[in-house]
């Protein structure tokens, strides 16, 4: 159920699963050291999202908030002794990879799915979460399954994996590609689109805050993918260091503490923590 080359697909998934599992079990081996060039900067330069709650967003005071923001702060604390040493920068969906390869940031923790097309241009750490895609529609909407959207329009975020997935797997579905979730949902409310597809982690937050929407049943979830932090190619030391920290975060049940800081609805909390602390559903 992945996007691009089908040959490498199964293998990639297998490798990712393996990495994910080993991340769980193999814990404290020799701790990898922080690469010198990062250490000499004195800060951890991280690209995060600014408009994608609960993963990364800005609060009413304009301060960074979100689960991935907490991750960045925790890693900065481990590396430099203080969460304030995380130098956070906003990255948009399209600009995530250019920002990294332009050396404006050293790592992107910005809901970046691990896909072959991306692996051609950047490297990934081991996954820190998994994600799946779902569809929401207005309550009382006609669709019962994904297949009901054939010939209809679904709104989606530009550059998101769902757009490519739909194009490849359900070419009869029209996609309306917009910049933000608000715009995509607006399109649904205004009848410009029949549904909105996005990461289920966000969909749960959306559902809890928006009474007029409903999600398609669980078995209609598609495009299960792993989320990893993105780094530049050929920086093995840095990858080893981040892999170790991601493992550590999982071991110390970091997300069980961080998610409630960000998400207030208990149902949503439970669902969101799942993406970080359990394995994805077997197909």
């Amino acid at each position: 159920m992945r996007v691009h080359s089908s040959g490498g697909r199964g293998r990639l998934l297998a490798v990712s699963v393996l990495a994910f599992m080993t991340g769980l079990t193999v814990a404290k081996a020799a701790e990898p050291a922080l690469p010198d060039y990062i250490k000499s900067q004195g800060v951890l330069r991280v690209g995060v999202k600014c408009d994608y709650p609960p993963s990364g967003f800005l609060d009413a005071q304009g301060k960074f908030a979100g689960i991935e923001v907490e991750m960045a702060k925790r890693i900065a604390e481990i590396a430099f002794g203080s969460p304030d040493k995380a130098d956070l920068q906003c990255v948009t969906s399209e600009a995530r990879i250019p920002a990294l390869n332009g050396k404006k940031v050293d790592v992107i923790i910005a809901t970046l799915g691990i896909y072959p097309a991306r692996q051609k241009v950047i490297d990934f750490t081991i996954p820190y979460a998994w994600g799946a895609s779902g569809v929401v529609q207005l309550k009382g909407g006609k669709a019962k399954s994904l297949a009901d959207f054939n010939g209809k329009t679904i709104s989606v975020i530009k550059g998101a994996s769902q757009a490519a997935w739909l194009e490849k797997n359900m070419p009869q579905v029209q996609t309306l590609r917009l910049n933000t979730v608000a715009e995509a949902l607006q399109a649904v409310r205004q009848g410009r689109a029949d549904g909105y597809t996005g990461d289920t982690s966000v969909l749960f937050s959306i559902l809890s805050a928006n009474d007029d929407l409903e999600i398609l049943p669980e078995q209609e979830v598609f495009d299960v993918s792993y989320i990893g932090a993105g780094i530049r190619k050929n920086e093995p030391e840095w990858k080893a260091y981040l892999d170790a920290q991601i493992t550590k975060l999982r071991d110390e049940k970091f997300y069980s503490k961080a998610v409630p800081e960000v998400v207030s609805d208990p149902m949503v909390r439970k669902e969101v923590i799942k993406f970080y602390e359990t394995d994805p559903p077997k197909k």
Partner: protein
Amino acid sequence: MHVIFVNQEILAQGLVMTLALTFCVLIAATAVATILAAGMLSRSALLRVPARILVEIMRDIPLFVTVMMIYFVAPTIGIALDPFEATVAGLGAWGGANGAIIIRAGIQAVSSGQREACAALGLHRFQALRLVILPQALRPILPPYLGLVTQLVQATSIGALIGVRELLRSAQIVIERATIMEGGLSPFTLYAAVLVVYFVICFALSLASARMEAVLSRHEQPSSSAKPRLSRLRLMPRG
């Protein structure tokens, strides 16, 4: 209105960023404009032709495409720019091209008799420019240049599309957070408020430009031929 009050801090930060962006763009554009105008007025075709081609290209490619191109392509040739820097570079190039045309027109508007008089007095070319030509050229230059500044303020909103946290982007972030976590709000109020803020800034600048034009041209004779030719098309900034 409530939504604006609650989010006043993030929105105010956005406004400050818009002003900072405008300030940097203005400096960049003025520097570029001066260099390009000098190039276009140069006696050497080696400088004049490239300057003209650059100005033409800068004015013909959509500004938004220029900014995106700088932001996305620069890293692949080893120049890393963050969204703020890329916006300043893109708007600076565009503003510079349009500014160069205003400056060149201003300098050419000074009658050739003045130049000849300077030569007769034995002034060096740069002395003539500094002491005689430029002071007179400021009169036709300043009002349209202030008009260009109005356009630059508006153009900074492009930064929102590549992630600069200026006014428009701040409003979008508020809308996004409210939609996902708080059950949404009417984008009508927020976008209307953003429009009003831009209007207040730009309208003040436009009034200043019109006033300056009136004051500066007080002593001028009404121009005899007011018929704009296509050549004047080159004087107008292009969005």
